[in-house]
Structures are given as C-alpha cells and as structure tokens.
C-alpha cells in the first residue's frame, strides 16, 4: 500500500513538473521568441492598421529621421526619407504585402503609444503618434557605403567592436520601399533577389577570410612555428588546390602565409590540425550558432567532416563552409576587441512621442572567444596583410588598418570578393565586412571599398 502512495507521488510530481514547465516555457517564449515570431511575414497582423495610432518614426544614432508617417489628403503615407539606402534594414510596411525589417520586428512598438496618451487621443478624437525606434546606424555612413557599392551585388556590414553597435548594414541590389506595392510583382520575379537582405540572410563561402580561424586553431595547437615549402599547388586525395602565385611561395611560415594568403600552407596546416580541432575552433567563432541581439541573421555553417579532402577545403574556407556578412564583420570585431565578442545590435532605444526613453538596449557583457595574446598575434598578421600583403588597397593614410582578404570560389561564376578588417589597428573604432558577389579577387575589389568606408567612419564618428 505504501508503495502505491509513493508511486502516486511520482505521478503527481510528473504532472506538477510538466505543468510548471509549460508555464515557464510560455514566459521564456514571450520574452525571447515572441518578437521574432511576430515579425514573420506570414503573420497577417502585420498588415493591420491601428485605427488610433499613426506609426512612429525610425531614427538613426544622431536622431536623424529615417522613416516617418506623413498625413496628406486625409490618408497616411509611410515616408522613407533615404529611400533605397535603408531598404533592407528598415524594410517596408504595407497593408497589402505586410512588413519586413525593423518595420516588422518593431511593429508593436511603432504602432503603440503610452496607454494614457492613447486614451486621451481616443476621447479627444485625435490621432496619436506611435513610439520612436532609435537605431545604432549612422545615416551618413550607411548612405556612403550604399553609394560606394552602387550597382554591384553584395553587402557591407560595419560595427563598433567595443560596443556591438551596428553602424551600417547595406545589401545590394535594393528596392524602393515607398513604391513596394507598385513594384511588388517585378521584385519577387527578379532573379537577382533584390528583396533578400544579403547582410543577414546571404550565406556565402568565406574563402580566405576563414584563415583567421585556421590560424587561431594553429596558435592554440602550438603550430605557430610550422613551416612548409610552397610549390604553388597542393594535391589532397585528388583535390587540386592552386595558389594565386603559380610559382609558389617557397619556404613559408605562418605569418608570411597569412599575409600572402598562401593556400598550400593553410591546407597542410589544416591537415595537421585535424577535423576536430578545426570544427571546434569554427564553433568557438560562432559557426553553427545564432548571432542574437535584437536582430535575426541566418546561422553560418561549418559541418563536421571526417575525410582529408573536405578538411583541406574547409581550412581555406571552401567546401561547404558558409557565412553571413554580419558574422564576417563579427569575426573582425572579435580580433579587434582582443578576442572578446559583444553581440551586435541595431536598436538602441524605444522613445515615446515626448522623446522620453521607454526602453534602451545595450550589448550584454563581453564573451571571451579567444585569449587576448592570441588575438594580438592575429591582429599583427592582419596589419601585415594591409601593410605588405594581399590587402594593400585597404590602406588609409595616417591610420594603421588590419584586415584579411578573401577570394571565394563558388558555383555561380567568378569568385566572390571579400574583405574583413578594422581600424585604427591600435584602438579600433570600426570593424567591417565587405563582400562583392562574383567580384573577383578580394584584394583588388572589396579591400578598397572597405578602406574608404573605414576612413569615412573614423571621420564621421569623431
């Protein structure tokens, strides 16, 4: 009999734990997932127009208005002041199509006001303006970066490595958010996918920018003094990997190989390190993990492989390794910030109509990704890349720049052109990732754009 009671108690516990578990899940759901779920374009609520509240403004870091609601001829129109330059990041809001970007993610905040103000407005029959969302973006830098990229397909992401604030988030090709309804049909049929936010949702092979991670694994695995004799190409189980320098780099060490982006060296280094070490290092640098902080990006991929052929291609960022431009900028910022990561974020404040802060956001305490001394070693190598290596065209006069180029082979034609880096090297103000789809070599195409954006950023942020 006693045993029965004991077992009944176990059943009771089972139910209590399950019910409380669901209750706790609901709370977690509300605070961590609800926002992203709500902003999904299949949520028809995003198309509803609030009857009493005029959608609020969206501002940049200096309170410059980027999007606002204008009342003309008794109808309210959403006005995107810098039109195409912010098309993906701010997104659009349309009754017919729904919302994307900040317009979707912060739909609730933009279309609500303080309850007392709302009640007053309803009683007086006046329309009330919704809350203002303040971004970390810098208008000048965003417009500059967007114009620099021009008609090329690709993306630029710039962030402050010390705070995690996103300063610019450009994706090309873009669209005009004010004319979204009229152009909708063309936009969804366009094979260049102008609606895709490449900065967050574009997954690209990283190519040689991944060598930062291979190098970090080498520093941890005590392969700092590893040397090879580069002949211009290596062959791993029938997989031929060529170097940009066909004659070969001769006898080469880690520092020189990084500066000149020697593929043979890193392939052999990767084979020495082995699959597991490289996989663990990639995970440390946030591959296969979501990058969170009031913005949603796709998860970058690095699969565990067991054969040498895959390992060889993975160690130079090829094979099935994929990365988003935001993540690439985050990797640059980790090295810039002595191995510490601050989660990138894009909304800094929600303000009411009187400009009073309702909510403010900051990146939580920094996570240590790699040790400071290892980060400093990589930083020195990245400085050499711009000083005397593949990234010379990212130079800024008077300021020391650190960077890494990438030329990523892909099945869609010419290689993608990559550059990630930061400046000034001794006291980084900006970390950046630039990718130009099918842009050819990273050193000659992405690097000069990155250099110009970093120069502009340093002058603008002063």
């Amino acid at each position, binding site marked *: 009999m006693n045993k*029965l009671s004991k077992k009944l108690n176990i059943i009771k516990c089972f139910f209590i734990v399950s*019910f409380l578990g669901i209750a706790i899940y609901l709370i977690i759901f509300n605070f961590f997932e*609800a926002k992203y779920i709500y902003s999904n374009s299949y949520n028809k609520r995003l198309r509803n127009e609030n009857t009493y509240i005029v959608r609020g403004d969206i501002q940049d870091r200096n309170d410059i208005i980027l999007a606002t609601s204008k009342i003309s001829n008794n109808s309210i129109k959403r006005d995107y002041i810098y039109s195409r330059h912010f098309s993906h990041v701010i997104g659009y809001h349309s009754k017919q199509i729904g919302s994307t970007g900040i317009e979707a993610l912060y739909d609730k905040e933009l279309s609500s006001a303080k309850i007392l103000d709302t009640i007053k407005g309803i009683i007086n029959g006046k329309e009330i303006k919704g809350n203002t969302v303040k971004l970390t973006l810098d208008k000048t830098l965003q417009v500059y970066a967007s114009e620099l990229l021009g008609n090329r397909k690709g993306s630029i992401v710039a962030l402050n490595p010390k705070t995690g604030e996103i300063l610019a988030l450009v994706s090309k090709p873009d669209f005009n958010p004010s004319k979204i309804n009229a152009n909708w049909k063309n936009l969804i049929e366009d094979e260049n996918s102008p609606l895709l936010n490449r900065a967050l949702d574009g997954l690209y092979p990283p190519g040689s920018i991944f060598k930062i991670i291979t190098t970090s694994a080498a520093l941890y695995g005590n392969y700092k003094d590893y040397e090879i004799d580069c002949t211009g190409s290596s062959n791993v189980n029938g997989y031929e990997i060529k170097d940009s320098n066909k004659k070969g780099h001769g006898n080469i060490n880690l520092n020189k190989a990084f500066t000149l982006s020697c593929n043979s060296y890193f392939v052999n280094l990767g084979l020495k390190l082995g699959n597991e070490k490289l996989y663990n290092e990639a995970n440390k640098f946030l591959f296969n993990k979501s990058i969170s902080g009031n913005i949603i990006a796709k998860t970058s991929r690095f699969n565990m492989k067991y054969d040498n052929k895959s390992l060889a291609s993975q160690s130079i960022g090829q094979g099935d390794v994929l990365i988003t431009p935001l993540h690439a900028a985050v990797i640059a910022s980790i090295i810039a910030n002595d191995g510490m990561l601050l989660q990138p974020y894009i909304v800094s404040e929600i303000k009411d109509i009187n400009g009073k802060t309702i909510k403010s956001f900051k990146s939580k305490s920094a996570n240590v990704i790699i040790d400071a001394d290892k980060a400093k070693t990589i930083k020195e190598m990245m400085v050499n890349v711009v000083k005397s290596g593949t990234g010379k065209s990212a130079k800024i006069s008077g300021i020391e720049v650190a960077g890494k180029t990438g030329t990523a082979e892909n099945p869609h034609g010419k290689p993608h052109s990559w550059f990630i880096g930061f400046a000034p090297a001794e006291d980084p103000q900006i970390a950046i990732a630039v990718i130009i789809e099918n842009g050819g070599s990273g050193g000659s195409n992405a690097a000069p754009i990155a250099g110009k954006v970093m120069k502009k950023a340093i002058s603008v942020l002063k």
Partner: protein
Amino acid sequence: MFDILSWLHRYIFIFLLAVFFIINIAIYFYNKKFLQPFLPVITIITAFSCFGLLSISSENIDYHGISTGVAFCLQYIVMRILLDRLLKINDILLFDLTNMLLAIGLIWLYRLNPEYAIKQTLFAVLGDTMYFFIFFLLKKVDLKKDYTIYLGLSILAALITTQVWGVEVYGSKNWLELLGYRFQPSEFLKIIFVIYISMVLSKGPNKKTLLISSASILVAVAFFALQRDLGSALIFFAVYLILLFVIDDKIYPTLASAAAALVMAAASYFLFGHIRSRVEAWLNPWKYVSDKSFQVTQSLFAIASGGLLGAGLNLGYPKYIPAVHTDFIFSAICEEVGILSGIIIILLLSMITLIGLNYSKNCNEIVNKLICLGLSSMTGIQTLVIIGGVLNIIPITGVTLPFVSYGGSSLLSQMINICLLYFVSMKETGDSHE
C-alpha cells in the same frame, strides 16, 4: 470607446483569475474552507464583466451575450446548490474549478461565434444532469465485482461501429451520426476504458491481467490509428502507462510498454503519410509555414502578439487560426488576455488533476484508486498534449482543452469524468462508514 474599456478590462480579468487561483491554493493547501463561497462569486463577476463587454462591442447592444452569461450563471448556481443539498458533495472545489474554466470557454466561444457558446451552454446543462444520472444509477453497482467482460466487449463494439459507420470530420474518421446529431464515441470510450483497465489491473498485476490489458490497449490504439485519431491514441496509451506504472511492483512491464509505444510511433511515422506530415510540420514550422504548419504557426503568431497582458477582449485576431474554437482556443485566449491568463488557466487545470490524484490517494480499494488515478491523469495528459501542441512543443494531435474548447462530446465526457471522481471517492468514504 470600446477599446479603452477592453484595455482596462484585461487587467480586471487577470486580477480576478489570479485571485481565483490564490483562493484555490488557500482552500486546497491551507484548508481555508471559509473562502469557498468566494469562488462562485468571482466566476460570476468574471462571466458578467466579459459578457457585458462583449454585448457592447458593436453599436447595438447585443442582448444574446448577456443572456448567455445569465444562462451560464443560473446553471452554475442551481447546480451548485443541488450538488450540496441533494448529492451531499462536501468537497465542491473541483466543481467550482471546472465552472471557471467553462465560463472562460463560453466567453471566447461567444466572442468567436455566438452560436458555439449557446450550444455549449446547452451541453453544460446536459452534463449537469449526468451527475444525477450517475449518482442514482450507479448507486447499487459494486465496483469490486467483475464487469470486465461486458465493458471490454462494449468498447470493442463501439470501436467497430465507429470504424464501419463512422463519418469523417477534420480528416479523422472518429464521428458517429445518430438522429442527425454527430458525436465522438472516443470521448466516452476514454471514461469506460479507464474503468475497464482499472478493473482488469486491480486483480493484481499478474501475467494474465497484463496480457489482457496490453492486448486491449493495442486493439484500441490500432483502431484509433485507422480512424486517424492521433490524440485519442496518445491519451489512451499515456493513461495506460500511468496505471501500469502505479500498480505494478516491477518496473519493466511499464518500460517495455513505453518502448513498444515508441516503436509503434516510429513505425507509424514511416507507414502513414498524415503522421509524417504532422511531424515535419512540428520540426520545421517555418519551412512549411504556408501549408503543413499553417495552423500551428498561426497559433504561435496569436500567442506572440498577445504578450503578457493581451490585446484586450475582442481586439485580437484569433480567427486567423483555423479550428480556433476547438483545438486552438488557448491561443485565442492568450492573444486577447495575455500569457499571464494563459498560465493561470494552465495552473487551474493542473489543480483539477492534482485534486483528482489526491482522491486516488485517499481511496482504500485498489480499483477505486486506479479509477480516480486514470480519470484525473486523463485530464492532465489531455491538457499537456493540447497546450504542448498549440505551442509547438510537441506535434499537434487534435484534442480539446478540457472544459474550455468547443465540443459537445468532449465537454460531456469531461463533466462525466469529474462526476465519476466525486462518485467513486464518496462511495469509498460511504463504504468505510458502514
């Protein structure tokens, strides 16, 4: 103006619900019986405030709303007095709890479609009469006698009847049509099944009883699989496992049955396309957002849009969710009065389960113990299965939220469930007095 009232109302609603829950705790855990009369008062205030608000939601005052509220309250008060005076039920807590949930259900059914609420009220009255039916009819029945043959055969007959003459509704062929009325036999079979299995297992867990009970559950689950009634199959099996776990000293028969269930679940995944698509919809809800996962993602949107406090009664868009009045009513409630209300509803349902389990603990006769255990576990499991489903924690299986969802068969079966709990526990105390 309605919007302002509705915004203010959600605070009142959550407050009333919270007070109701706290009083429940005080009565149940701290034995503060004098608080008991407050429970019906709170329920009636809740019902009137909500139905009152709904009746002024459009320009003309809608008297149907108020009269539905009045009808519910009359049903509740009259029944409560009758239970007290006529049937001498001394522990009325369970009844108060179910009526609060019923009231919440009626409010949202009315908000979604007044016709549902009116029908549901009628079923509630029908459910009330079941109390008298059961108390007077079963009075002479000795649960210790062996009725297993009759029960077992009648379950089998009902399953076969459904299989042969069943009608398909919402993709499941588990409905019967009689004189123009449709009902779901599986809802009533649940109750009979619990009594049947309890009687079989109460003879002691030996080879024979284990064989009979496991063969019965297999047959029942096989029929449900054929009728595409996943929810019933899951609930039957879970309740069976709980009964087996409690009665059997050895653990391995329970483990073996659980393993068998897993194997069957895996096999059905490969055998049946509709199960496969449910699982896929559960694993990748955003991949299939426009087809397979449409329903559950719409449910997630509703819950996500509500936040802690909700949009306010009648100010949300729960009708975007297909079948919102049956399986997904929890999402509708969360959207309009918030996750906080949702949590309290979950806690109220867990109270019902726990009170039932305590009845089981207080029984002396093994068969009574098992019946109480089975009946209360049924409510608990069903709640977990449907709330887990609408939150996409588990695949959606299409069962109702006890006492809240629309559905005549399911409401009647749940009221009979509570009634039997009362009946068995009172019979037990009555027997021991003699």
